[in-house]
Structure formats: structure tokens, C-alpha cells
């Protein structure tokens, strides 16, 4: 199928380029969206392999496979890869593909910036992981070994892997900020006539808040790691107590970004959930306005609660109490979202295709993340749980069950729209059940480990933790392997399969379903008018 025949007028003169050249120079939001999604999928497996190596080491007490230094590098880079190179690009990929289709815009507002934003990612990913390879050839001492949080003074003293990671974070930050500006301008300026802000699809709303959070907080991270860089090489003392600096300041700066980052990762997913739930419950979304206001409330609250990540670093009691209550206050708008999701399904004519299964799995497991988060937010309890495996299990319920499974919900929901083919429902369901089973097998034992006092970020542990660690490792390997089903399913769907109709799901609502599947290369050149 040639592109020239699929869209009328306008671009016919534009020479069509095939092969690598097309992907390098494309300014088409669908192409760029596809590249983001593919990049994200690849990095998802890269980050996954790293953590499987970690879990293999933790299968038994004692050191079997690797040195502690290498272990430290793996956990830090795993986190950075999963957050910055898998989850965030996946969300940006959704935004690129879907926001113009959903709001009736012909493309993103700033197409060239869009292209650049994507092509900054591969170099950054290489920067992050290159020190591993260099170390094999005896250059340097490996990648960032401080954990993904870069805490000073450890990161001031670390090897050159820290510099690589700092520069990678700079590049990833620039890419994300450009993406955010693009999305905000698109949503503000390019909506179809008649689409007021309160008719905006919830997915676009979720992304809008994410974009503003990125713009407000990523530069703070960039500033913090810049200070780290000058501390390391140019003799400044921002975080060096010997020179009058303060290492705790780094924690404040880092988490001023780091906490909103959680919502940056989750808001796009919360935005897409109502679409999926409404479609498969055959009911309109419940509480549209309530959800929009909850998004805004969560966005605002997320920038004033950061210090709950280091309750044990030493703070006056009034500050502890403030951060405890403000953190707990986030559960109010979040509960509104949960009730809206449940109310959307209430008495609906539900059917359980793969996206719906993932959506329901998301609600249940993400609920566990929220409840365990409340426990951690409690200052008194946190003294025990801080830096234990309880925290690890908690944030994997938030970011795997909440983030990654949310992304999978969206992929299964929109894949037929993108490719024009139906995915294999049997493989999708198999993928879902294996993922849910093995995810819980991996992380429920980690709650127990944390409660029993096992600290995170250690390559070896006391004997009493052996059984739960062994179970967790088995779960992790099943979890990792079942993602191959996901990749295979995507592959066969791209290659062929049952033809998908324009309105892929019988009661799907929204502008994107009024286009063919796959949509023409240039869509909504004439903007639809919303009544």
C-alpha cells in the first residue's frame, strides 16, 4: 500500500522515502509514535534482563554470579532504564499516536521537534549502558553504582559511570521537556473546533498534567545533577559537607523531581483507563469532571510531598508530620479515581477481552500499591520499612502493575487501530494470566522480606530470607519469559492477522475510532467539528 494513494491532495508531491531514511527524518506523529513504542519495548527487555541477573544472584544467599559492585550497577541502571527509557517513552508513544487522533488534529504542533525528541533517546540509552561494555575492555569501573537516586556523597565519589548517567539524564530530560512542550501546545492550540477543554478525552487530560509536571520538575533534576557534576569535577561544594555543602540538600532536590515523576509515569495510564473501562462495560465514563479535577489535584499535591522518601534522614517532627499528612492527602483524589473506575464498570454489560483483563488487573494490583503506600507514608511505621524490600515491593506494584500493565492495557486496546490487524486473543489472555500470576509470585514475598527486615540493594542476605528470595526469583523468571509472549503477539499482529474495522471495539467512543484501521498516514487534515 503506497502512502500517496491513502491520503487526498496536499502531500502528494512530498517524496516518499523508504527504509532507514524515512524513520530518521519522519515528522509524522504516527511514525514517531511507533518509534517511541518500539524503543520502549526494546528497553523494557534490556532493563528486564538486568533485573533477571539480579534476581538470579539473589536466588540463594551468598555471592554466586557477580561481584557486589556489578550488582549495584545492575540495580541502578535497571531503574533508570525502566523509568526513563521504557515507561516514559511508552507514554510519549501513546501521546504521539493517540492525542492527534483523539482531538482531531492533523499532527502534533511541532513535528520537527518531535522527531528530534525521539532521536535523542537512543544516544541517551547508549550513554547509560555503555560503561558496562567499557568495563569489559578494562576502561573505567562500570556503570552508575549508586542506585538510580544518585545520592551524594556516594555519587560525588563514584567512578565515571556516574558521569555517563548524569549526561544521559540531561539528554533524556531535554527530550522529555521537548515532548511535553509539544503535547501542551498540541492540546491547547490544535483541538478540533467545538472540542472544549471539558470535552477533551481523559487520556489527553492525563497527559496534559503529566506534561506540566515534567516541565516543572525535570529542570530541577537537571539542576541537581549539574551541581553533582560540578562537585565532581570543578571543585564546587554543593553537596560536600567539608566545603560547607549539604548532602541532604541533594535528597531534597532529587525527590522534588522524583516524587512527581511517579505521577508523570502514572497519569497517562490513569487517563487511558476510563476509555478502556467504558468500552468494555458498554457504558459512558462515570464522573468525567471528577476525574479531571482529581488529575489536577494529584498534580498539584505531588510537588509538595517529596520528603516522605527520606523520613529517616533526620527532619524536625513538624516537617515529618506535614509531609506525612500531605502524602496521605493524595489518597483522596486517588480514591475518587478508583471509585470512578469501579462505577464505570458498575452494572455494565462487561466483556473480558485482553485490554479489559489488564485494566481490571491494573485496578486491583494498583490498589495494593496505594494501600501499601499509605503504610509507608506513616512516619512511625516508615522507620521500620524504610529502605527495606517492603518499599521495593510497594513501588513495583505502583510502577509495574500501575505503569507497565497500564501501558499493556493501552497497547492491546489500540494495537488493532495502529496496525489494522486484530492481535491474537488467546495469546493475549495467556500473557495476562501469566503476568498477573508471576508478578504476584515475585513481589508478594518481597513484602514479607521487607517486614522481616531485609534491606534493599544488597547482593547477599541472611539465611532466614532464603525461601522467600528463591520464590521471588522463580516468579521473576516466569514474569520475564511471559513478556516474550507479548512481544511475539505484537510481532504477529504487525505482520498480519484478522482485519480490524475502524471502530475496533463495538462500543468504543471517540474520534480515533471514526478513522480507518490503520488510520491513513495523514489524518484529520480537515478537522472534525464537535457538536
Amino acid at each position, binding site marked *: 500500500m503506497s502512502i500517496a494513494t491513502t491520503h487526498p491532495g496536499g502531500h502528494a508531491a512530498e517524496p516518499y522515502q523508504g527504509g532507514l531514511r524515512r524513520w530518521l527524518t519522519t515528522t509524522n506523529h504516527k511514525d514517531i509514535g511507533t518509534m517511541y513504542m518500539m524503543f520502549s519495548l526494546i528497553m523494557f527487555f534490556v532493563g528486564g534482563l538486568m533485573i533477571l541477573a539480579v534476581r538470579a544472584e539473589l536466588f540463594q544467599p551468598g555471592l554466586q554470579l557477580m561481584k557486589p559492585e556489578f550488582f549495584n550497577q545492575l540495580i541502578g541502571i535497571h531503574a533508570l532504564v525502566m523509568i526513563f527509557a521504557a515507561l516514559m517513552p511508552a507514554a510519549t508513544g501513546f501521546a504521539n499516536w493517540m492525542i492527534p487522533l483523539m482531538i482531531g488534529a492533523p499532527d502534533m504542533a511541532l513535528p520537527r521537534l518531535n522527531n528530534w525528541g525521539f532521536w535523542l533517546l537512543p544516544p541517551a540509552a547508549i550513554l547509560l549502558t555503555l560503561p558496562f561494555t567499557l568495563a569489559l575492555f578494562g576502561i573505567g569501573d562500570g556503570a552508575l553504582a549508586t542506585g538510580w537516586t544518585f545520592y551524594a556523597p556516594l555519587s560525588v565519589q563514584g567512578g565515571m559511570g556516574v558521569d555517563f548517567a548524569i549526561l544521559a539524564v540531561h539528554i533524556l530530560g531535554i527530550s522529555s521537556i521537548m515532548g511535553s512542550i509539544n503535547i501542551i501546545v498540541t492540546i491547547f492550540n490544535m483541538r478540533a473546533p467545538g472540542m472544549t477543554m471539558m470535552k477533551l478525552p481523559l487520556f489527553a487530560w492525563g497527559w496534559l498534567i503529566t506534561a506540566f509536571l515534567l516541565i516543572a520538575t525535570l529542570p530541577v533534576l537537571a539542576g541537581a545533577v549539574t551541581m553533582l557534576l560540578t562537585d565532581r569535577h570543578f571543585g564546587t561544594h554543593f553537596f560536600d559537607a567539608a566545603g560547607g555543602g549539604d548532602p541532604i540538600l541533594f535528597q531534597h532536590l532529587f525527590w522534588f523531581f522524583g516524587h512527581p515523576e511517579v505521577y508523570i509515569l502514572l497519569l497517562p495510564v490513569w487517563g487511558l483507563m476510563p476509555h478502556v473501562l467504558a468500552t468494555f462495560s458498554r457504558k459512558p465514563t462515570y464522573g468525567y469532571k471528577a476525574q479531571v479535577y482529581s488529575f489536577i489535584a494529584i498534580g498539584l499535591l505531588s510537588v509538595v510531598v517529596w520528603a516522605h522518601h527520606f523520613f529517616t534522614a533526620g527532619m*524536625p517532627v513538624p516537617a515529618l508530620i506535614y509531609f506525612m499528612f500531605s502524602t496521605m492527602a493524595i489518597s483522596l483524589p486517588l480514591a475518587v479515581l478508583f471509585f470512578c473506575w469501579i462505577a464505570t464498570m458498575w452494572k455494565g454489560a462487561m466483556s473480558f477481552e485482553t485490554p479489559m483483563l489488564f485494566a481490571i488487573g491494573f485496578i486491583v494490583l494498583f490498589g495494593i500499591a496505594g494501600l501499601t503506600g499509605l503504610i509507608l507514608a506513616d512516619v512511625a511505621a516508615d522507620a521500620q520499612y524504610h529502605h527495606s524490600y517492603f518499599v521495593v515491593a510497594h513501588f513495583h506494584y505502583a510502577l509495574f502493575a500501575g505503569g507497565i500493565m497500564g501501558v499493556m492495557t493501552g497497547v492491546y486496546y489500540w494495537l488493532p487501530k495502529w496496525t489494522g490487524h486484530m492481535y491474537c486473543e488467546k495469546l493475549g489472555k495467556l500473557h495476562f494470566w501469566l503476568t498477573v500470576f508471576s508478578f504476584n509470585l515475585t513481589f508478594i514475598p518481597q513484602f514479607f522480606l521487607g517486614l522481616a527486615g531485609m534491606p534493599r540493594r544488597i547482593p547477599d542476605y541472611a539465611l532466614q530470607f532464603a525461601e522467600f528470595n528463591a520464590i521471588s526469583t522463580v516468579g521473576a523468571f516466569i514474569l520475564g519469559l511471559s513478556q516474550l509472549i507479548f512481544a511475539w503477539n505484537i510481532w504477529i499482529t504487525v505482520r498480519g492477522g484478522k482485519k480490524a474495522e475502524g471502530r475496533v471495539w463495538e462500543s468504543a467512543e471517540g474520534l480515533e475510532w471514526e478513522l480507518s484501521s490503520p488510520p491513513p498516514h495523514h489524518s484529520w487534515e480537515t478537522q472534525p467539528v464537535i457538536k
Partner: protein
Amino acid sequence: MEQARTAPPSHNRLIGRLLLLVAGAFVFAFAMVPLYDVLCQVTGFNGKTGGQETIRDNFGFGGLKTATAPEPAVDLTRSVRVEFTGTVMPGLPWDMRPLTLSLDVHPGELQQVTYLVRNTSNRSITGQAVPSVTPGQAAQHFEKIECFCFEQQTLGPGEAREMPLAFIVKPAVDRSISHITLSYAFFGLEGQRQTLTSREVP
């Protein structure tokens, strides 16, 4: 169709505003450095102890200005356990330990303890101790009358020295505080600071 593809003129304005926001957030990160310092001075975050101003203007054993410190009546109705600890930062070949590990004091009572500090290298080195008090609320009420941290200390090759510390826990300290930990970190001066570039220098 042509209409739909002409970009609305307000793109650039919006982009400009958003970029301003980005720049503002970046500047905010650097503004936090002095702001945070001020916050710590005022509230005692991070255990920055009281009486530091008098140290800086070299009044020696000052710290007891009659205006600021009322006659310290000793509060015999309660006692606070003060624990002492200390670390030597990497790059400084010294070791240190408190000769008194902990002490029960009545607020308002003058107490004296000593730390034993030893230079394990065969050259003369100058170091500076930086104190920190936990919990932070106690920091403002922990007054050091005399302290080896008031000035730089130079130890000859292999020299060991007992370094004195005299302090008062002021009676104004909150009644809920039963334990105070005083911790020192000894830093080497003279280019022993850890940076990537200076680390290899012996």
C-alpha cells in the same frame, strides 16, 4: 483543507511561556541552595547547632552571651542522655573515638568530655571537625562552650591527642527529648577532598 494546515499564530507565544517555566524551574533548583541553608539556620534542620555565630567571629570560648543565654538554672527534675560518636571522612588517615560513650546530664549542667584523635600517617595533617546533633530540635539547645571543632586541628606524624569538649544542654530543651546524639565528622583540609580528579593524588 488549507485552512486546517495553517498553524495557529499563538504557537510561538505558548512555547515561549513554557520555556520560561522550564528556565524558572532550573533556576529554582539553584535558588534552593542558599534558601535551604537559611532554612537550616532558622529551624535547626540537619542538626546545625546553636552558637555557631560566635564561633565564626573568633570569640574563642564565647557562646554564652548574657543577653541570649539566661542564667542556666540546672533542671534537676529530669536528665537527658547524650551519646557521642564520630567518624573520619575518607581521605583523612586519622582515627577518632569518644573516651566517653554516653552521659546522663541534667539540662543546664556544664559537662566536659574528651575525644581521642590519632594521626595514623607519617606526615603532619590538618583537619576540621564538623558537628551534628540529632534530633534536629535539640540542636538549638545544645550549646558548646569549648570545642575542638571551633578551630582547625593539626596532628604531627603518629601523634595522638585528647581533644576536649565542654557543653551545656540548655533547660529550654523540649521535655520530650530524652536522648541526644552528638556526632563529629573530621574532614581533611589541604586538597584531600574527594573528587574524581584529586583522588589519585597521594
